[in-house]
């Protein structure tokens, strides 16, 4: 049971990471980050169910709240980015080049 859940969580996490690395659209990058967060949350839930501990669910609630905050900040940044570059391409914002 735990094994299947963790495999699913890993697959989800990998998919999310692939999204972050491969998508250029910032909105999709944010959505991929959500997927990665939820993969982590799934892993906590599975672990909490396996060892009959409430901590797993506590951590999931915490991740949920953090994700909400992150989306709020992230979408604000996306809006500012679009306003500035007239584009949603993450590679456009590369002025910090060394």
């Amino acid at each position, binding site marked *: 049971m735990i094994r299947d859940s963790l495999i699913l969580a890993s697959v989800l996490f990998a998919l999310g990471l692939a999204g*972050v690395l491969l998508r250029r659209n910032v909105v999709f*990058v944010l959505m991929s980050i959500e997927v990665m967060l939820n993969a982590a949350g799934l892993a906590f839930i599975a672990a909490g169910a396996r060892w009959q501990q409430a901590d797993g669910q506590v951590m999931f609630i915490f991740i949920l709240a953090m994700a909400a905050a992150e989306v709020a900040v992230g979408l604000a940044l996306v809006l500012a980015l679009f306003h500035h570059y007239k584009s949603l391409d*993450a590679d456009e914002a*590369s002025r910090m080049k*060394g």
Partner: protein
Amino acid sequence: MLDLLWLIPAAPFASAAVLLLVGRRMPRKVVATLGVVSIAVSAIVSGLVAIAFIGSPPPGNAYDQHLWTWIAVGGFHPGIALYLDPLSLIMTLVVTFVSFLIHLYSTEFMAGDEGYARFFAYMNLFVASMVMLVLGDNLLLLYLGWEGVGLCSYLLIGFWYRDPANGRAGQKAFIVTRVGDTSMAIGLFLLFHMLGTLNIQELMARARADWPVGSGLAIAAAALLLGGAVGKSAQLPLQTWLPDAMAGPTPTSALIHAATMVTAGVYLIARTHVLYEIAPAVQLAVAIIGAATLLLAGFSALVQTDIKRVLAYSTISQIGYMFLALGLGAWSAAIFHFMTHAFFKALLFLAAGIVIEALHQEHNIFHMGGLRRELPVAFWAFLAGGCALAGLPLVTAGSYSKDWIIASASPSPALWAAAIAGVLLTSLYTFRLIFLVFFGTARTPVSKQPGVAEQIPVWVLAVLSIVGGSERPAYRPFMAHLFGATPKPPEALSTIAAAAAFFTGLVCAWYFLRGDAPATNPLARFWYAGWGFDWLYGRIFVRPVEWAARVNHNDVIDSMYDGLATLARFVWRGLALTENGKLRWYAAAIAGGTLIFVALVIFL
């Protein structure tokens, strides 16, 4: 009276310090007064000290004045201490007195020069160093004076520094004598390591007690010190610097490169004569070096065209005589010849200075001539000095000292013959010079007559060159305290032979060496170039060093540090590539790094 000894080096040193610091802002009169009076103080004090010393000799016939301890490290504590005995007394007297005359002469000779204060500062510093060299009671203090006079020699050869050739001559003198100085320094290390002191008197006593005659250590120490003496005194094989040293002002040539500094090597060997007595092989080498040098330099002097270079080769040749005397164990004769040589060679240089000044800096003797009537002072001075140099029998000081040396050489026929041949050569080149410069037809008009300040030293030195040898009967027992009573060598045959050589040279010079143009045959050119030593050393030492410097233009050692810098730049380029500003790239880097760390934690 003897406790005033410290004033002899202190007065010129103080004056040199003042002139170096504020001399440029002083009026010329003050500079000249300070420069000359300081040396006069030295000369007067050494005269008083001499009277006191001879009048009532201190116990042991030596006076030691310990001023303060210079360095104290473990068992090594050389003092600033002055040691007065007959040898250092004679040296000090001659050095201070001749220096005083030459300083007086310089006040007029250098009058128009912009570096007036600089000149007197260097000259005073030279006198202070030279007196330190002579009076130092340990070899370290002697070495301090030794390097001090070397420095002043360098500074004064390159005194007119605007001409690069003068600077090069100074560098040559400095570097060539440095070869000898290095050998001498190693000798000092050896002596201190083996005998545990540098105090000359203790050193000599311990050397005599510890080292048997002919032992390897004694030979090594004597040979290393000889290296230093050979460099400073311009003897074979380090004689090449002295002719070029004539680039300096003429009073410098008279004082440093004729009368005093170049005889420091003679003094060193006489001072450490015990070492040479227990190393007979090295002592023989000293005699052979002296004989070879006096002949070599004599031939070179015969074909020179520059009046000062003739005198320079003559100086090398006369110091060769002193070395010959040292090598034969005639220590007193060597010092006696040093004294008379200081008088007549300083005289000749000062007279040459008058000639050069009168003829608008003309140095070539083939452009001179007929100056007998127009420059009588220079003529009579040259005649007195030249006769003393060539050794006019019975009359001049030079003949007394030289005959003594020749007579000392009589046990060894080869050395004796070399010494007699040297007299012939000396007579030839001296009278060639006199005939070319003062007889015949005038070729350059005389523009300036010497003033009083130039004439007084010349007259005094001329008188000394004639009568300076007459105190020999008193001199011999005076030095015998130090060097042991040597039997008076039979002189009759030597004196007759030397007289014959002198007159032969005089007559031959009159008939054969009064030509209008310098000799141009290959042998004369070879001699003119100083027997090709410059060429040889250029090939053996200078060229390879220059070649190595060219090859190693980009320093090999530097390439290591250059490599480090290149590596840093390369790594910087690589790291800069990662800072590309692309968010996804950074995210990938974070993910990759995390993966690596997690893998490390799991698998290790």
